[in-house]
């Protein structure tokens, strides 16, 4: 009787992937694929690119699963691989050179409840609209929890650049939330 990938435990999945068993690989994909697509969507410029990131990212995960030593949760390790893979692909786009003035953006006092009302898909769409550089720094800092030092090492930019990009990203997002609120009203 063929094994159902859904019933495998995490240890069985990891051991199976290390042994190169397709059933374990599929189980890992079924368990973490949807979350990883969300992760990749935050970095990709569009849905198709996000799917490419996921595809390439999982191939990297299966190829390098031997390097997973269990020091962190499997999901965290996979998301790191996905993010690194996405950043590698995006490195070609010169997000560092983007020059979007912040003079036109300004701080808004927004009720935190406003964010709570938004769905995850709405938030993803708003983040998608950010310029690539802002989006990457915002995702790494605000969602993944990287420090500015880690971001600067990962992207090869200065810590101050990381901070300023985050600031601009936040302001731009706030502005977009306000616009969304207006439309909703």
């Amino acid at each position, binding site marked *: 009787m063929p094994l159902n990938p859904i019933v495998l435990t995490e240890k069985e999945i990891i051991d199976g992937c290390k042994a190169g068993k397709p059933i374990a690989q599929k189980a890992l994909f079924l368990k973490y694929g949807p979350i990883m697509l969300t992760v990749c969507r935050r970095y990709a410029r569009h849905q198709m690119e996000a799917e490419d990131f996921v595809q390439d990212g999982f*191939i990297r995960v299966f190829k390098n699963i031997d390097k997973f030593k269990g020091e962190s949760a499997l999901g965290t390790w996979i998301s790191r691989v996905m993010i690194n893979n996405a950043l590698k692909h995006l490195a070609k786009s010169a997000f560092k050179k983007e020059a979007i003035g912040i003079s036109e953006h300004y701080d808004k006092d927004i009720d935190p409840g406003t964010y709570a009302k938004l769905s995850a898909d709405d938030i*993803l769409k708003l983040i998608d609209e950010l310029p690539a550089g802002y989006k990457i720094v915002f995702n790494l800092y605000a969602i993944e*929890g990287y420090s500015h030092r880690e971001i600067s090492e990962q992207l090869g930019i200065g810590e101050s650049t990381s901070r300023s990009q985050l600031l601009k990203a936040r302001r731009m997002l706030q502005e977009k939330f306000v616009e969304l609120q207006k439309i909703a009203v």
Partner: protein
Amino acid sequence: MSEMDRILRKKLFEHESAMPDDMWSRIESGLEEKKRDKGFAWLWLIGILFMATSVGVWFYANGLSEGDQEFLQDTEFALGKEAQEPVQKTQDKPQPYRTNEHQEINIQTPPPKPNSSKPVAKIDEVVILNSESLGEVKKSNIVETPAVQSSKKRVSQVSTKKDLAQTEIQKDLLMTSQIPRLSLTTIEQAAHVFPDPLKCTTFARKRTANIFGEVFYKPSYAHAILRTNSSEVGQDYLDQRKETEFSLYSWSAGVNLGWVSAYNIGLKAGLEYEVINERFVFEDPDAIRNQTVITIDTVFNSDGTFQTTSDTSVVQVSGTEVQRIHNYHKSFSIPIIMLYQMNFGDFAIEFSGGPVFNINYANRGKILDPTNQDRWFTKGASGSYDVFKDRLGISLSLSVSAMYSVNKHIQVFARPDFKYNPTSISRNSSPFTQRYLNSGIAIGMRYYLSGNPNF
């Protein structure tokens, strides 16, 4: 962390997006591709092993002669300084070497110095048989002179074991050490008169290293290998592609600058321009063509003059449209090729292989998309089907050349050559992968700047 960050993280961190149905099959095909790439690495390994074996054979062949020389030196040391002098013939008249073909070669040897105290071996007769294989010294009778005998005595004295058997071994050593010294000289001289009829490979060190330039032209056949990495795009699409695209005559031309070391191993690099030609043939049975019809009427008036009127209308004509489009893929690449030569007199065989780095790629033409619509894919054209990469990456080339030296500087060659793109020329986002296995025979000419040492 701001309140905004906290809320966004909470909402997004474990959010799951709907996965496309074909994602797993795409990953599976990607994994298979990696395995295939690993399989291709075996070809490289075989190539490297081949090169290493060739180098090993060369060193083995040379190592034997070096060992012989060391053996001779050791024996000579045991014999004493006097024994290192060349062996001289004692007869006044030069003696002919007789061969089984009754040819005689007179070798002039200096007469012995009177009252010389140096050891002299007297050669009665050396017969060289010019057999069907290599020439060999068949027989050598050496009459030992008193000086040689005294050397042998010293050998016995320095030996720690003085039993009779040991002395006999040393005698044998003495005899065998003398024979090659004669043989090497005489065979070398005889080689000019009796060249090796089989022209066996020399495996010999060239006298000098050499720099060369070469030009070539290669008619070839490029076999397209199409695969899909998406279950959405099935085998039907690939079949449609294969039915509508046909390989035509392809070619490449290039120049290389290279260097062959004294050990017959070399390296070359240059520039190669390649054109892969294909024909796209597509029949659309439901095609509609807009045809402009201009109707011109001439009206004669009663006064004898006439007027011309025209009317333009567009008529739609339906029918089967047959498209025949010449597709091409043009590329400029830099090959960096390792080579190894085996020389057979004027002829030589050269094994070569290495990576070919693409620096520029252009294309033009039409293919079918997964909805079976014909689409232009011409690079850079607006609205084109952007499925091919901007650069083709690294190809791998393997070839064997048959070479002939026309004169001291010029060598002509014919080179069966295989080239393979391990990575697809299509983008990752495209619904298919497309590789080429290119085989052809390059014809060209090579010019050695300081002359071909093997000529």
